[in-house]
């Protein structure tokens, strides 16, 4: 087994709010092998983004705080680094792209300036070198006439082009890990496909390790090798992608996949949805966070929170129920 590039252990993040302390991430542990693509799936507010921002130390503090856990990147704990050290990890070692490309670029800086910034910062390039490299990066992400576009402002670009710029910016210093936080959610379907293709191509060319956060299980199926499903700040299921789709084991994942529209659906019927709302994490849950919405819920689910356990060699779930039989495992 190759050594883990990133290993997150028991990560906990809390936010102080006027209503009380919100437990956004509750003991999340996962590993990331070099060169693999990890999909992180879950509905809004289940802690996907906060987990990533936590180990990059980008949680605004106050009100947020990482209260426990480790995040080992090549053996070094990101959570214990000085501000100076973590700054050189961000951008240079771990890049990140965001959900909404329309608001992720500074409106008063030219595209070129924004692209050149990390190059000058981390690679110590001078202006000319950085400008040349920026143009190359734009070409790489499929923007033609790159040189002319360097002097453009973000408002002159479309959403898809901006997301390409964001990707170019994230990749500019050849980071080991790219965290993509729902990069296709704000784009229309054809552009989505282009961006996914672009990332796939770049991954194969550059041999990057990717964490792809999304709530679209379709994209994950085509892109990721391994998938983590999160709910209420917990990892509820973790499996290689083929295993996950072949052998869905957590009631929440069953619901997620059930709610996907299908091409082969012939009968006109309503799309399936999971009843209820995701929990507000004001108290650290003592029961299974999914219990109120689960159709297999049992007595035991209300009393203790199921730990993440292996059901096969690479497949782990946090549930007491076997969804195939509907009985306790």
């Amino acid at each position: 087994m190759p050594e883990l590039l990133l290993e997150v252990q028991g990560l906990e993040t809390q936010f102080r709010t006027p209503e009380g302390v919100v437990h956004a991430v509750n003991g999340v542990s996962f590993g990331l092998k070099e060169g693999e693509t990890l999909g992180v799936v879950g509905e809004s507010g289940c802690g996907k983004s906060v987990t990533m921002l936590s180990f990059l130390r980008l949680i605004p503090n106050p009100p947020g705080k990482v209260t426990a856990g480790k995040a080992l990147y090549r053996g070094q704990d990101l959570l214990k680094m000085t501000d100076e050290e973590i700054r050189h990890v961000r951008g240079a070692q771990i890049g990140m792209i965001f959900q909404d490309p329309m608001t992720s670029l500074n409106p008063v800086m030219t595209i070129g300036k924004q692209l050149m910034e990390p190059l000058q910062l981390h690679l110590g390039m001078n202006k000319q070198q950085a400008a040349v490299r920026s143009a190359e990066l734009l070409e790489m992400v499929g923007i033609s006439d790159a040189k002319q576009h360097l002097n453009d402002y973000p408002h002159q670009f479309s959403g898809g082009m901006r997301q390409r710029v964001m990707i170019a910016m994230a990749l500019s210093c050849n980071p080991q890990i790219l965290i993509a936080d729902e990069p296709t959610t704000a784009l229309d379907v054809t552009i989505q496909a282009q961006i996914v293709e672009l990332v796939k191509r770049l991954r194969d060319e550059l041999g990057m390790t990717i964490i792809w956060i999304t709530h679209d299980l379709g994209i994950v199926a085509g892109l990721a090798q391994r998938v983590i499903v999160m709910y209420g700040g917990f990892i509820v299921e973790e499996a290689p992608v083929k295993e996950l789709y072949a052998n869905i084991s957590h009631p929440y994942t069953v619901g997620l996949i059930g709610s996907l529209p299908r091409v082969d659906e012939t009968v006109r019927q309503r799309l399936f949805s999971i009843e209820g709302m995701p929990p507000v994490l004001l108290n650290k849950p003592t029961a299974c966070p999914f219990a109120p919405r689960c159709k297999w819920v049992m007595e035991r689910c209300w009393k203790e929170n199921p730990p993440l356990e292996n059901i096969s060699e690479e497949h782990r779930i946090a549930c007491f129920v076997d969804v195939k039989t509907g009985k306790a495992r």
Partner: protein
Amino acid sequence: MTTAPSGDNSLLKDTISMRKIGWLERFLGPENYRITVGLLKTPASILGLVLIIFFVLIAIFAPLIIPPVDGADPYTIPRDGFISDPQPVGSAWKKNVPPVPFWYKAVTGKDAWVHVMGTSEGQYDIFYGVVWGTRTAFYTGLMVTIATLLMGVIYGAVSAYYGGWLDNVMMRIVDILLILPGILAALILAAVLTPKIGKSLIPTMTALIAFGWMSYSRIIRGDILSVKERDYIMAARVIGVKDSRILFRHILPNAIFPTLVLASLAIGDVVLSFAALSFLGIGTQVGYADWGQVLSFARNWITSLNTYWYIVVFPGITLILFVMGWNLLGDALRDVLDPRMRGRS
């Protein structure tokens, strides 16, 4: 293969009216053109611009309009003797006469200087004070505004960016300073400073700066609080940009415009406050070319102003026009630059 649709589009030419782009717009670019046109749109904004340009010219050409007396400090108003009573407009200038400039004979038809606007108490020439006082007005107005702006922006920016308890403490300090009546506090500080650093522009300017920056820090703080939560700021942090650089390169350019507009409106106020303090005898030494100083010579003659009207009217009107010019220009600038004002008349 698809082919591009072809056809005769000439008919469209008449149905779609195109906006004509003139040579000026081509030369300046659309945004600068919009600002220029905006500044020249209403009579008020044109008046403001004309007034300020007029005063700028006076300040620049002061040595040509009325040259300083040989060997004397140009910023000290020359005295024609020591008689107490003000002398009327047009009376002859006997002692301390400045050199006659080239325009003087052509305009007035005389060979020697007279007191164009009369003299005030102690025979200070009012015209000299008004002309050279323009320089003082620009100097103090701009310096105080720039200094307060810098202080306020840096203070407010740090407060907003770091937030939390620091923000709380810093903003409470601002609250406390804002409770003090500004001009009175400045008066006291200037009065305390004057004996320490001597009579000059500096005590008054320091006092106006010390009590003038708070409103800027409040405005900029609010705008930064909104800008710092935007996605592109998070994106900058993700690529590892330093805090100070994020603040000054990424946040401030997106947040500073409302504050700049406020500053352009404040220049007139600063000059007015400075003149008020100067009128009360704080700051510069007696006889310094400064409008407040010139006006202060009228203090003892308030009861007989029907005779000595010129000692108040000329410097007073000058001050009014100067402040009005900045206010009109500031208003026009706000209309043009503040996006929240766009589309309103």
